[in-house]
């Protein structure tokens, strides 16, 4: 290379051809997506577990409206009740199980140091996780919906647009919660433990598994504090009735903003 060539490539390096943050973000997202898919935890909790639970619930309750009891499932068929609920569960699983384990692992293991030494911006690291989580959530949600549609006569969502909007909102809220957990938990094991506990508490107390109508008052009161309760409400409204539950939406948006801002403040390079 001539002296001129070297000089001009150096100049270009610091000028306009500087790789955009967006390109780095997309590249990292693609890699993160592949990494998540190589992780058994993802396959189990995001893809297999929700479908298995759907199968059990479907076999027990069928999909006849009021088929088992007039008072449960808000008057819709059990599977029309559960399909949107389990889409919400998928977004929760990605948020509270996948993200915290990944983020604590990166921080404590020196992966972040490695990225930082190459000047990868922290927002790109966090952003790629969240984007990859969103894509995983979409795959998981499609699996749940497809399973319900193929094996049980669930109806088509009354409002696909509201369902999609709700899905994005749920994903954002749980991604923010997961990122915050990833920022405060000291180790991957601690993060995984906390994530699994949140997962099961929410799974059983938010109306996603046990219908609200048969829950005790205590269970319901606890459920009022769980983000998944609002996620389930929001997606069920969109699925059956095509309505938008503003209370649920606002609560989830609030969680997304507060947890998101907090985690950006708390998360530190290793």
């Amino acid at each position: 290379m001539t002296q001129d060539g070297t000089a001009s490539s150096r100049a270009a390096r610091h000028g306009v051809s500087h790789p955009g943050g967006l390109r780095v973000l997309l590249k990292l997202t693609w890699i993160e997506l592949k990494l998540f898919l190589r992780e058994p935890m993802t396959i189990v909790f995001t893809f297999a577990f929700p479908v298995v639970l759907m199968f059990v619930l479907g076999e027990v309750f069928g999909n006849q409206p009021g088929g088992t009891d007039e008072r449960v499932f808000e008057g819709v068929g059990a599977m029309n009740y559960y399909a949107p609920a389990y889409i919400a569960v998928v977004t929760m699983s990605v948020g509270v199980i996948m993200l915290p384990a990944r983020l604590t692992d990166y921080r404590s293991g020196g992966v972040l140091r490695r990225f930082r030494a190459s000047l990868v911006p922290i927002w790109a690291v966090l952003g790629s996780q969240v984007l990859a989580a969103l894509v995983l959530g979409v795959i998981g949600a499609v699996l749940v919906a497809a399973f319900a549609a193929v094996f049980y006569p669930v109806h088509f969502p009354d409002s696909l647009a509201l369902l999609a909007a709700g899905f994005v909102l749920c994903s954002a809220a749980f991604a923010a919660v997961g990122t915050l957990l990833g920022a405060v938990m000291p180790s991957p094991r601690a993060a995984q433990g906390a994530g699994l506990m949140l997962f099961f508490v929410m799974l059983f107390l938010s109306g996603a598994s046990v219908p609200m109508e048969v829950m005790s008052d205590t269970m319901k009161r606890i459920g009022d504090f769980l983000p998944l309760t609002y996620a389930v409400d929001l997606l069920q409204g969109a699925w059956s009735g095509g309505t938008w539950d503003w209370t649920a939406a606002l609560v989830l948006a609030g969680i997304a903003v507060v947890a998101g801002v907090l985690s950006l403040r708390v998360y530190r390079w290793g």
Partner: protein
Amino acid sequence: MPPVITVEHLRKVYGHHVIAVDDISFEVERGEIFGLLGSNGAGKTTTVECVQGLRTPTAGKVRVLGKDPRTHAGDLRGRMGCQLQESRLPDHLKVWEALDLFASLAPGAVDWQTLIEQWGLAEKRNASFSSLSGGQRQRLFIALALVSSPEVVFLDEMTTGLDPAARRIAWDLIEKIRGRGTTVVLVTHFMDEAERLCDRVAVVDKGNLIAVDTPRGLVVRYDPLEQVVFTCELPELEWLEGVPGARSVTRRGRRVVVEGTGALLVHVAAALVERGLAPDDLRVIEPSLEDVFLKLTGHLVED
């Protein structure tokens, strides 16, 4: 030509009491291999981490290619390559994906296919990071440090964990990197590595820089005595003390050791020939960097 790296009165204190770096100043010239030599905990890694912009100095001035690495990190993107002592990649990340990712972070990156061959990782290209051996990980990190075709590259304990054969290969490659005009900052606690590779060595001890020179210069300055050794049956050797440059003559069993400076070997040889002696094991033992280090710091590097 301005120096590639300038460090002036660098100081780094962790918490309130732990002085990792007390007061260190040095310059690294373009195209040289500059070594930071010291025992574990001497402050070498903290020093390079401040230079890389990974840590904020408590006091002092650091410039890399004329820029402050803390405030002008973006200007240094891709111009600086780092192999960190403690870092990892995601377990499931494959070798080629890591190279591809880090190449995409900087424009003007070299073709990583070449690097993968050079660093002996070709048959591991589809292996995940967690499945690599210590030496393979080390080589991958060095390749990652070079993928942006940087102007200056930092190698922190790069041969730790490599077997002797891999070390030799690594040394050859480092010399090739320098041969292309890249400045290399080498952090090491291996004397032989510093002696073999470095154009200049800075000896770091307890957070201070106690000497900077070429390996040979350090030896000449701090431990100039060399030894000429041979086997000889003659009981009386006082005549050897008159040899130019000789300081002392000692007999150790059948071996005779003449210690001194200058062209000692030639003068001893001439004196021997004059006496009709021709020992077939006459040789010179030069002081090593290790001797100098011991003299300068008062302790061995492994301590």
